[in-house]
């Protein structure tokens, strides 16, 4: 047996699993999305893209995803920076605090928000007590609720992605900037921010992808009246049993994500030369 064969044998089970249980189903679904009674058709796509109801869902999904991603980046960047620059014990605690939500089921997390944001939940209560809102204020079944819930879900991804990059920035660069007269904020703006950009971009892509395809949280926090693309897909699969249409929607989702992902890969690929 040669080295090659040994490595081939090692990698083969995994490759087979991927090929048969991952790529094959996805390609089959791609095929299903253009499936029609008389051969391949784009009818399902045109049905989606031609209906303002569905376009509304698409727009909402995209809009929410952008907002969520932006908020995650805004909170995640300072969080990651702090995590990178504090002492080891505090950092360990922060990492645990960040990872814990990541490793709990999304269902459990969303449930927690449901409790907090419902009509009798703690947050509307506090807001009412502070006199900021009226008596019937409820956060549940609003887009805001979705945003809050999703931000909590995705913030760890963003923070960890940026953290990975910031830890590689030599702290002496910041010290050098300070000795050259930069204030703390200026140092962040001119040194840390540009250097952490790859992490921010990677985290944003991850956050955007996950938001756009998210199902459980938007469904539970937004209710059936506020649908995102994933919910529409779920409906097509389980309620209307229109599988080709569901497949078409999945393809639209996939393409949408690729549209955002591909330029990023090109950019970083070129940067690496």
């Amino acid at each position, binding site marked *: 047996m040669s080295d090659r064969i040994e490595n081939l044998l090692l990698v083969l089970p*995994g490759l087979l699993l991927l090929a048969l249980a991952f790529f094959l189903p996805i390609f089959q679904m791609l095929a299903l999305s253009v499936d029609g009674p008389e051969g391949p058709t784009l009818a399902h796509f045109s049905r989606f893209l031609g209906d303002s109801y569905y376009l509304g869902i698409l727009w909402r999904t995209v809009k929410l995803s952008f907002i969520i991603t932006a908020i995650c980046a805004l909170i995640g960047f300072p969080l990651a920076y702090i995590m990178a620059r504090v002492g080891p014990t505090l950092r360990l605690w922060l990492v645990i605090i960040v990872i814990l939500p990541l490793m709990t089921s999304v269902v*459990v997390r969303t449930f927690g928000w449901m409790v907090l944001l419902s009509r009798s939940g703690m947050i509307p209560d506090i807001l009412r007590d502070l006199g900021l809102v009226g008596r019937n204020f409820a956060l549940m079944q609003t887009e805001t609720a979705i945003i809050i819930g999703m931000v909590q879900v995705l913030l760890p991804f963003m923070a960890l992605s940026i953290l990975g990059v910031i830890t590689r920035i030599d702290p002496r660069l910041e010290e050098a900037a300070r000795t050259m007269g930069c204030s703390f904020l200026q140092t962040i703006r001119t040194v840390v921010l540009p250097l952490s950009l790859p992490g921010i971009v990677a985290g944003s892509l991850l956050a955007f992808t996950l938001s756009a395809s998210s199902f459980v949280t938007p469904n539970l926090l937004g209710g059936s009246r506020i649908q995102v693309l994933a919910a529409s897909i*779920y409906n097509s699969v389980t309620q209307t049993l229109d599988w080709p249409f569901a497949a078409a929607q999945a393809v639209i989702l996939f393409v949408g994500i690729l549209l955002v992902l591909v330029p990023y890969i090109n950019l970083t690929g070129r940067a690496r030369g």
Partner: protein
Amino acid sequence: MIFVALTTILLLAPLIVVVGASFSASQFVVFPPQGFSLEWYRKVLSSPEYLNAGFVSLNVALLVTVTATLVGGAAAIAIHRKQLPGSEILAALFLSPLVLPTIIYAIGMLMFWSSVFGPVSLPVLWISHTVIAMPYVIRTTLAVLSESDPFLEEAARTMGANRMQRLWLVVVPQCLPGLAAGAFFAFNVSFDEAVLSLFLRKPGLTTLPVQIYGQLEFSPDPSVAAVSAIMIALTVILILVIDRFLGIKKFANA
């Protein structure tokens, strides 16, 4: 700093709420809890639906842990050695399930399985969970391997070790921490997985997260909180175990 405190609250609030509400004595899910009672835990632990779902989840998760670790670990070793053509592409391929949104994979799998095998059953859960859990094993194993001495295998050869001996006595012990951490991540991923299990379910084949989701769509009583709190406790234990094996820090950057 206040910022850190606020962010911590944001990140942990839902979990704290769930745990707190599970102890409530009232009929409704409220936070802060009213009164203290373990009634809901008792209810959960004697409820056939929850117990069945828990059993399914546990079953699948254990199976997945074994297969994902074995298959993923072997693949990681082969990829690390970089002797196969296109190792970089291979690595990307194996990590691709992480990049693809689970819902797309879920319906793909449902449609594929239905057209080839018919109704869903435990094997399809097992296989699809393995597919999404395997990248975690590969990531952690590759991380550990990349920090190991690249000359160890060569040294073993000069000491007379043949192929099998090198694999068993040198390479595997090297990546054992990575395999262990990966195994725990795999268990966690499978146990918590909601979307895949949601699409690939049928009566009797419901996992715990799916059971909870079902309850949440209607009006939940605190037993949902209790079962969720149990799941959180499981996660905490897993994190502690992973930390013991390797230190969480290493995988914070993965």
